[in-house]
């Protein structure tokens, strides 16, 4: 029961953190920079709780283990979750939901490939080289290296990609 509860609390904290980050963007757009700052700070606090719960659940391993877990999660979303959700949304003609699902599914395919290649490096004890990673702020499309002129998934100008 405690494991179930901590898993539920991890889910709750993770979702609270993401909600607050979205709310911070709204507050900034509405001209409330200090409320935006409060939302970002509290989102970070929720992230510390999520990390603590995940640690108690034994969900943090070595980087090689973490890459395998990450690859597994992406693979489930690609093979099972998003295709099933998309089939239901298509049947129910919820077009906006389908856009949100398609954006996510396409980016998870990027992530699956990147995690797979990265894991092979780590198994040979190698870090990635320092090439920047760039992410579309609209759909999450993820590339290693230069941003495209336009995002191939959603058409957003490559200049808006966030660089890591």
């Amino acid at each position: 029961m405690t494991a179930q509860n901590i898993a539920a609390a991890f889910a709750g904290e993770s979702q609270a953190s993401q909600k607050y980050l979205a709310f911070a963007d709204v507050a900034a757009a509405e001209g409330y920079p200090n409320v935006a700052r409060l939302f970002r700070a509290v989102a970070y606090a929720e992230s510390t709780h999520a990390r603590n719960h995940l640690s108690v659940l034994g969900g943090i391993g070595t980087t090689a283990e973490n890459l395998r877990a990450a690859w597994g999660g992406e693979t489930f979303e690609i093979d099972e979750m998003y295709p099933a959700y998309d089939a239901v949304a298509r049947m129910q003609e919820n077009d906006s939901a389908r856009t949100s699902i398609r954006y996510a599914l396409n980016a998870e395919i990027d992530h699956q490939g990147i995690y797979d290649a990265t894991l092979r490096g780590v198994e040979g004890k190698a870090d990635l080289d320092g090439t920047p990673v760039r992410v579309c702020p609209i759909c999450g499309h993820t590339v290693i290296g230069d941003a495209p002129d336009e995002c191939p998934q959603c058409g957003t100008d490559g200049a808006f990609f966030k660089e890591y």
Partner: protein
Amino acid sequence: MDEVMERRLPGAEDLHAMTEASLKAAFAGESQAAEKYMVFAEQADEEGLPNIANLFRAISFAETRHARNHLRVMGGVGTTAENLKTAFEGESFEIDEMYPAYAEIARLQAMTQASRSIRYAQRSEADHKEMYAAARAKAMAGADIEAGPVSVCLICGHTMIGDLPEKCLVCGAPKEYYRTF
């Protein structure tokens, strides 16, 4: 975020119940993936793999974009006054219902680490609830809150506005462990 970008984002729509259930589950999944990858980034840093840490942070950001998109479609993003009410209610539920119930079961089952993780969270949700209540009162009058750094303990999430104590009031971590926003 300019209008060009805004147009590409999926917006709220009337959802059938099954599609709504799908998006709720997808929002939960993306949110948890984003948090996991941030933790995995810290682990990679500790192992001397800074570029893999960077990759985890980038992909975590991608998952936050998906979480935000799903939340928008579900109509979960409102005005700031509405969002502060949503946030206040979420914190209240965790303080009044969720964490006390979880703490009781963890105590019954003598799970000390789980109890600690629950206590850390519950204590800071009380901070958040008060801050959100005060901010909502301001936002409903069309005013921002005062400028002033907000600090968060990176061990337990204790959240405060103003000067830091020498040690975290909740977990005892030294004040260098606070991150300031």
